[in-house]
């Protein structure tokens, strides 16, 4: 079973976490085209590689970002949303 580093609670077994999907930058809903919006909502890049992902630590209710290489399943770093520079 995998271990995951919660930025608040430290290393915990992955069974305590919920995957929240890939993190994607939302385009400006007022100015973007329909096509840009549809791409944001529906299109996922399936190719393996380094991804930013949402993860949720259930017992403490902590959402955070994990940078994970989906090819090797290695998590390089985790941080709270918006605190990327502090990680």
């Amino acid at each position: 079973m995998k271990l995951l580093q919660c930025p608040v609670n430290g290393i915990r077994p992955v069974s305590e976490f919920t995957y929240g999907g890939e993190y994607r930058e939302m385009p400006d809903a007022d100015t973007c085209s329909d096509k840009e919006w549809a791409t944001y909502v529906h299109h996922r890049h399936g190719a393996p590689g380094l991804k930013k992902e949402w993860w949720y630590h259930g017992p403490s209710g902590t959402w955070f970002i994990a940078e994970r290489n989906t090819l090797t399943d290695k998590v390089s770093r985790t941080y709270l949303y918006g605190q990327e520079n502090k990680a």
Partner: protein
Amino acid sequence: MTLRIAEQENEWINRDMPLTFEYEGQQIEAYEGDTISSALWAADIKVLGRSFKYHRARGLLSFANHDVNALMTDGQDTNIRADVIPVTHGMQLTAVNTDGGVLKDKGRYIDKISAFLPVGFYYKTFHKPKWMFPFWEDKIRKAAGLGKVNFNYPRITRAKRYAHCDVLVVGAGASGLSAALEAADAGSQVILVDENRKIGGSLTYDMAADVNTGSLLKQLTENVLNHPNIRVIADAYAGGYYTDHLVPIVEKRGITKVRAGSIIVASGVFEQPPVFRYNDLPGVMLSSAAQRLVNRYSVKPFTKGIVVTANDYGYRAALDLAAANVEIVAVIDMRQTGADGDLTAKVKQAGIAVHLGSCIYEVVPTSDKMGVSAVVVCAYDEATAEADLHQQVVLHCDGVAMSAGWAPAAALLYQAGTQMRYDEAVQQFVPNQLPDGVFAAGKVNGIFELEQRMLDGKRAGAEASRYLGKTTVSPVEVTAHRGNSPSHPYPIVNHPKAKNFVDFDEDIQVKDFINAAKEGFDNIELMKRFTTVGMGPSQGKHSNMNAIRILARIRDLPVEKIGSTTARPFFHPTPIGHLGGRGFHPHRLTAMHEWHVKEGAVMMEAGVWMRPAYYLPAGVKISNQQAVQQEALAVRKSAGMIDGSTLGKIEVFGKDAAAFLERFYTGKFASQKVGNSRIAMLLDEAGVIVDDGVAVRLDQDKFYVSTNSSNAATVYREMQRNLQLWGMQVTLVNLTGVMSAMTLAGPSSRSILSEVTELDLLDEAFPQGAYREALVAGVKARVMRVAFVSDLAFEIHVPSSAGLHVWQKIMDAGKTYGIRPFGTDAQRLLRLEMGHHLISHDTDGLTNPFEAHADSLVAMDKPFFIGQRSLKILQKKPLKKKLVRFVLDTNFSEMPKECNLVIENGEIAGRVTSISFSEYVNRVIGFAFVLPEQAKAGNQFAIRTDSGRMEMAEVVEDAFLSLSQG
């Protein structure tokens, strides 16, 4: 006759504890510490089982936990591995896979017709004529498998244990022991696991008659057992490798899941047999098996034997056997060059003849075909793998020890993602690139010489310590293998009459591989599946390497290009009882749970919660269906109450509370009055309906939001995520488990509730949609006027500690009105009668609000809410489907079911999402998705039932309740 020799210093048996057991009806004497095989062999019983396919007599082969032809049953357990399971007093054993006993097995005729059963025959035969197939299928199924499963096997639960350590060392041979000591000396907590009953690995049997081996073993063992940082788990195997160094250690008592900081795999090697005709007869065994037998159990493998070898290890075995007074007729060395160092001299000194460049062409069986009477020795050409029959000699003997090479026990390394390479110096796959924190040491790492192996263990121990941050530990240098390769590149002797076995589990011979390749199965994965090599219970531990060598030669490729198949976890057969455990699936129970059970509630799982589906009170004889209808009728005619504690209940407060809800939900909340409730519909970013709940404004900056029971966790999670994204000043408190909730519904509900509260419940004071705080049955309660299951209903929320009290008081007050508790089944019917759809029951992962008549809940004029941008796109497009209420034609002959299709002009137009008979309405009513043009009230459409009938239904506009009044 006994083959047991005089007591030796390091033997594993306790001669003070004799015991007897029964094998195939015969009483056998043994000692405590004997395995079943060693005890039988000591009693000169050499037919230990029958092979899987041809039912050939088989004896000892590896004596190392993969003697798959010596499987026993004691009546309760089956497939007991005789080579490793200790014998106990009074055991009654028989061999599996025989028909009429191991000696007179009626299945042995199959060996005679084996020429007609080539590899893969069952893929090609028995298909024609087709009507005969059931006959053959029955025969094949009876022949397949080994032991018989005992369906009366007792249920024995075994606890799962957990352990943590800095370094896990797998294998307690010379390298593993050294690795454990090095890591432990550096201050790491070490767990050392070994499948043998005693630690020491090959030091416990491979001595080459060197007395120093014993003292080295003693010293290493003492150091390890006395080390405060080392915990030894013997008689257990590491079953597999899972991410981040999680390894299940399998013992007889159960599984221990070990999470290690680092892993050292010092699992050693499996001896591989040379391949020659009749290499499977009882009495022919691997050299290491002969050494184990004589050095651990003080049993001679034979009285007068031959050693055939393609490496130096046969010489070592000959020396060990000679030291135990086993007569060795000759050492037959398949190589031209002979052994390294002084091994040849020592063997000759022991009076044993050495024949270089020779092979065993075939073994001559005894007349009963269950033993060895002689071997035919010929000159051997290593390049062609052919024996020269012009130079042959027959040597009489009663057994053969054979040695040809080794295959790494690398299953854990493969599972961890190790890249292996083929090392020509040792003719073996060795680790090329190891994953982080995983280290290999000893023979599995291609290091064979004893001193270097110990050094390699020390090196791995040092590397693991450095990996764990103990950088002061100095690195250790190991010298790569020098001299003769411990494995022969092609230890095969061709024979026109075959029966030269490669895989003893599945009776696969050299010609089977050639035939498979001819048929095009010449990739290792295809060949494995076609020939079934390595698919028996030993999972290729003694056969995969030879299979790869044979395929490499057939295809004229280097071994490395053939590659190897990966053994998945578990690396060794593990009892299902070890894996199965007690259910740890937690359920949440509401405060009123016990009350429901006492009243005869039939509980069902609703997400993590247990909820009453309906009630079957004791002494009342009604069907499930009647119970549901009666509960629903009680609500329509007087009153009923449902436990709604499972609803998600979230308090949202803070300066931005209203603004937050406006962004989160589709409706408007900024303008909501304190003391009022509004529907809270949640979409996802694609505009699909996810949840609908109710938001009550408790105060200017405080809301109390409910969600569907099944969405309580997800909605709360999404609120938390978006709060982080949007950075608003809001605090969330999840009250789902803290608050009990109940819905009192029906025309009498107002009268009943007024008996337990002072609150003015009349329409003017407490209209539909309003929210009040009041004492109910003496408890501070939150009360809402709702209309989900009936026009008049009150939802009452109280702290969970008071839930049962309030519930009981209301039930007591309702007694004279005929109140009934109702479950989720009646609730579904009631809301259907009311014409309310259920999110994620009547809607699916593609349904948007426009398709589900929810336009009025969507405030498109707001600046933003989740899913709004997608709705703006959808708004411009024509609808694809529409959710409608329908009644079924009264003359229907087959009741349609949920998910039956709506058919229009022979095409699929939609599907039924809810359907039920309502006793109150006296019609079959439901929801269905139909084409937008079919959605007008009064429109008729057809539903195709399970049996293909078309039943007509009509779209209705209003709640179904109006039908009963009309």
